[in-house]
């Protein structure tokens, strides 16, 4: 017999029932957290919601030919902060106007279509900042074809500030849930360390150092935390995918399903799993220490 017994999964080997229940609970919690994390990542808090509703309108001069206007729209679409730039000719603008204000078609009778064409510009959710909007508007204002740029600059800073605040609130709620997970895990680890105190004393009496026990318990908790978080995030991602497919209107708030497999989304999920592993390991160590010192 070797003198150093393997202590991997020592809690599992000593107390399967309670640990299984805890593990199922943690997996379900990680599913919820994974769903929330991916929703937050894709939506950027409320960034996508605001970006979906905010548009810059570049009103063109009356005499601008369609070909030139479309060329300008393509150039604007190439700007880094711009998600899309669509040219609407005067006819399309008139139809939109009538849809918005039915019964005003006599206005046209007097001297033809009174509305000019325009370019509707939408900003990327992650670039919806005062600086990027300023970049686009100043670029548009320097173009001679553009009569006027409507960007809501008088109320935009307040809107962006509110958006940032709302995003931070969303992240804060997520962090609070993560902190709650840590606290509950620590209490569970402490309770388990107390319940297994007799077994640990038995092992210590037979030459198994307490430090090794604590280390391997924490290592086991970290590995299982990583695996549970990864599995929970994958399940949460699956649930989010199905939700977005079932309710397409959610895409305007959260984002397209294709974003779920972007490298940065996957990297964030891996980082989250690593964080969960660290928290699980720390909770195990703190729970062990609290149980040994008899504190809460």
């Amino acid at each position, binding site marked *: *017999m070797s003198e150093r*017994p*393997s202590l991997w999964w020592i809690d599992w*080997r000593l107390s399967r029932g309670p640990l299984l229940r805890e593990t199922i609970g943690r997996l379900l919690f990680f599913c919820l957290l994974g769903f929330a994390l991916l929703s937050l990542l894709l939506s950027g808090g409320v960034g996508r919601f605001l970006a979906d509703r905010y548009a810059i309108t570049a009103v063109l001069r009356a005499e601008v030919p369609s070909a030139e206007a479309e060329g300008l729209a393509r150039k604007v679409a190439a700007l880094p902060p711009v998600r899309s730039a669509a040219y609407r000719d005067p006819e399309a603008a008139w139809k939109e106007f009538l849809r918005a204000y039915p019964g005003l078609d006599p206005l046209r009778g007097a001297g033809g279509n009174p509305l000019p064409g325009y370019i509707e510009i939408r900003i990327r959710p992650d670039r919806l900042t005062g600086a990027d909007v300023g970049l686009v508007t100043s670029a548009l204002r320097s173009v001679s074809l553009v009569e006027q740029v409507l960007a809501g600059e008088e109320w935009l800073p307040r809107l962006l500030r509110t958006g940032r605040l709302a995003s931070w609130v969303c992240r804060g709620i997520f962090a609070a849930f993560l902190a709650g997970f840590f606290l509950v895990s620590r209490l569970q680890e402490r309770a388990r360390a107390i319940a297994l105190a007799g077994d640990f004393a*038995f092992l210590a009496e037979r*030459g198994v150092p307490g430090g090794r026990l604590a280390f391997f318990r924490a290592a086991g908790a970290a590995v299982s935390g990583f695996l549970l978080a990864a599995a929970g995030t994958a399940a949460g991602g699956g649930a989010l995918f199905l939700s977005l497919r079932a309710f397409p209107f959610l895409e305007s708030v959260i984002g397209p399903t294709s974003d779920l497999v972007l490298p940065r989304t996957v990297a964030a999920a891996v980082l989250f799993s690593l964080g969960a592993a660290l928290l699980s390991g720390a909770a195990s160590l703190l729970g062990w220490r609290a149980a040994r010192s008899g504190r809460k």
Partner: protein
Amino acid sequence: MIEGFRLGVFSRGTTLWDGLDFALGDAAAWFVAGPPSSGKTLLLSILRGERRPDAGDVVVSGESLYRGNAALARAWRASCGHVPEQTIADARLTVADLFRRSALAGSGVRERERKDRTERLLEMVGLPGVLEWRIAELSISERVRACLAAELLRGPKILFCDGVVAGAGIPCREMLWGLFRALAREGNTVVLAERTIPERWVLAAGDAEPVGPFRVYRLPVPGAGMR
């Protein structure tokens, strides 16, 4: 060999014993008899390396247990088995849990091997088929025998038994007598601490060596020469 040099313990505001000198040779069964509250359990925990004596030292195979290398002390504890005086601490466990826990303390016991040896050991101590029974459901005698069998699972080189003979009861004495002597014959060391030694064992062991409040007997081991 386990040697005690000028061992002393001060407990409850008084000197329990002091200046104990003794040597317990390897491959033998030793019987330490002493009156109640004389510190037998304390002596065993000192010899196992669990409790530092207030005076003196314990030397195992030429190395100090308390003043030497901590790793050596851990290795010593790992080679020891211990059957404690029965308490209700493990009442929530089943007999199978005792064996599982014991196997954890000594790695290298495969699952299949553990099961085979568990069944054989339980049969040997007269407890076949009790694996799923809770410790709380067992009598004192059954608990003692179950704990003894669980310790033997790891095959400890040195076995410390506290009150095992008294706890197991008169009907089990013959089995224990044979078991301890067989363990010693195979090269293991057994140290028993009891209030009284059964008469037949005294007759076989001969004169005791007085060590402080204790009387230390060496049980005869068939096929082994006396020290």
